[in-house]
């Protein structure tokens, strides 16, 4: 088995965004004797490429979802042994109170979900207390806070302060995003990171959680 050829085939299959092609590539990899963990790494590399192509406007959101769906189905067919018990990292995502912008945040949720995270999207105009409730309910590892207006940015800080007041801040990472948010703002309010776009959100979530 030429490992690199098999990995390239897995990546190529992911870029096709077709479940049957991805399933076939995974079956070939299994038949060639590749361990399940390495197959998943190959699929994940393909998913990263899908995200990059989305950012470049070469692939679109339905493609991202189709690729993620194919990957999910393919992984379910693998014998993961003990690794199969690995628990997904949980991310709470939402647009802060007073801000009704939804689309950018939804794209971030979709991309995170496509990358293997368990995402609970609370929607938009989310009261700050609801973020805290969700962190407790889902035992979250990260909170994603979106705001698209300068007038609602403070909501991101309010959620962080409420996390502190509830003794949860050290248990979760906080990512902020949205047009007026910046790295400087993230540092100022004590967030763990700022993401410029959906692709960067995935990269930073992986860096902080995996």
């Amino acid at each position, binding site marked *: 088995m030429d490992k690199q050829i098999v990995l390239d085939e897995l990546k190529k299959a992911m870029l096709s965004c077709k479940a049957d092609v991805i399933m076939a590539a995974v079956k070939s990899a299994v038949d060639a004797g590749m361990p399940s963990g390495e197959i998943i790494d190959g699929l994940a590399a393909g998913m990263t490429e899908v995200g990059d192509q989305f950012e470049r406007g070469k692939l679109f959101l339905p493609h991202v979802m189709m690729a993620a769906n194919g990957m999910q189905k393919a992984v379910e067919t693998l014998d993961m042994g003990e690794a199969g018990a690995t628990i997904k990292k949980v991310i709470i995502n939402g647009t802060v109170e007073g801000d009704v*912008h939804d689309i950018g945040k*939804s794209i971030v949720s*979709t991309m995170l979900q496509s990358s293997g995270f368990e995402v609970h999207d609370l929607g938009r105009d989310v009261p700050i207390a609801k973020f805290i409730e969700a962190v407790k309910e889902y035992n979250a590892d990260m909170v994603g806070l979106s705001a698209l207006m300068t007038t609602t940015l403070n909501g991101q800080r309010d959620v962080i302060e409420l996390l502190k007041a509830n003794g949860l801040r050290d248990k979760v990472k906080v990512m902020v995003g949205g047009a007026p948010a910046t790295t400087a703002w993230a540092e100022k309010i004590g967030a763990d990171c700022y993401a410029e776009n959906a692709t960067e959100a995935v990269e930073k979530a992986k860096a902080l959680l995996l």
Partner: protein
Amino acid sequence: MATEYYLRMGDGKRVSMSKDKIKEEAIAGAGNAVDYGLVPDLSADEIDKIIEICIMPGKAVAVEFGMEVPVTHDIGTIRLDGDQGNSGVGIPSSRLVGMMMHERAFGADTMELGHIDYSFKPVKPIVSNECQMMEVAQQNMIVPLFYGAMPNMGLYYTPDGPFENPGDLLKAFKLDEAFASMEHSAEHLTRDIVWIMQKLMASGADGVNLDTTAAAGDADAYATLNAVKALREEFPDMYIEVGMAGESIIGMHGMLEFEGKILAGLWPHQQIGLVEKAGANVFGPVVNTNTSRSFPWNLARAITFTKEVSKISNIPLHVDMGMGVGGIPMLETPPIDAVTRASKAMVEMTGIDGI
């Protein structure tokens, strides 16, 4: 030690850079546009011109004599009296006063009437008020006065509208339902834009400014371009300006076409042809500012994209220059040093017709 020049990051933070560093950043920014948009790179002379503008000693700079261009304003109608920490400055004034101030005191070359929600859908139940305001404003003003609003197709999705939110449907892998929701919303958005503008045109409007087109992705662009086409057929002399929301049309749907071309993933130089075909008079291309990158990086990137649009375009370009676009940092009140440098570079280097 090399001389350092004060510039900014894309988030507005003050930084100092040597001339060599500015050059390095400008080359990298232009290279990013080449990489993403597959547009021609800037020449060495053009990079030098960007450096020259970046290191000019004045806090504010200006275009050379004879290179002045018209400036138009979008939400200026309510910028004076906005008092909730948004773009406004809290001066109690009516919309008419706001528009007349822009015409007579601030030198705006065109102006628009806009509503606080600044989206077409919420105008439907109050269109009579808008028509009255348009008539009164036209009786008091000389500059071309348009009606301005965002297509804002997100308002047609739950929880704001009747159609299920495609973001939720996509996350649930319900692709066909998501496509149907976007297509139905687009039909309604086209119909609403046309209906509202029929009323406003009957009330004396000189045209329409479709602001932040494609904010909700390719279906938003699809609906807007079809509305432009319908309006052009009905009003051959109407002024129609199409301004974009972002540099690339996000593929929420992915398969919607206008005039045989898939809309998703189009960059500014690929958008202009379709805007022309739809029948618009003016196009407002957008290049987003990356807040983690420097001013020279962002400016060179914006110039590289816009230059290509300008080369291809057969209609006037009024480039979006402001908070977080056109190389200008993302700040509530964009810093004058960056605004004037970016504007000077954009006008002198790309051949645009207005801002």
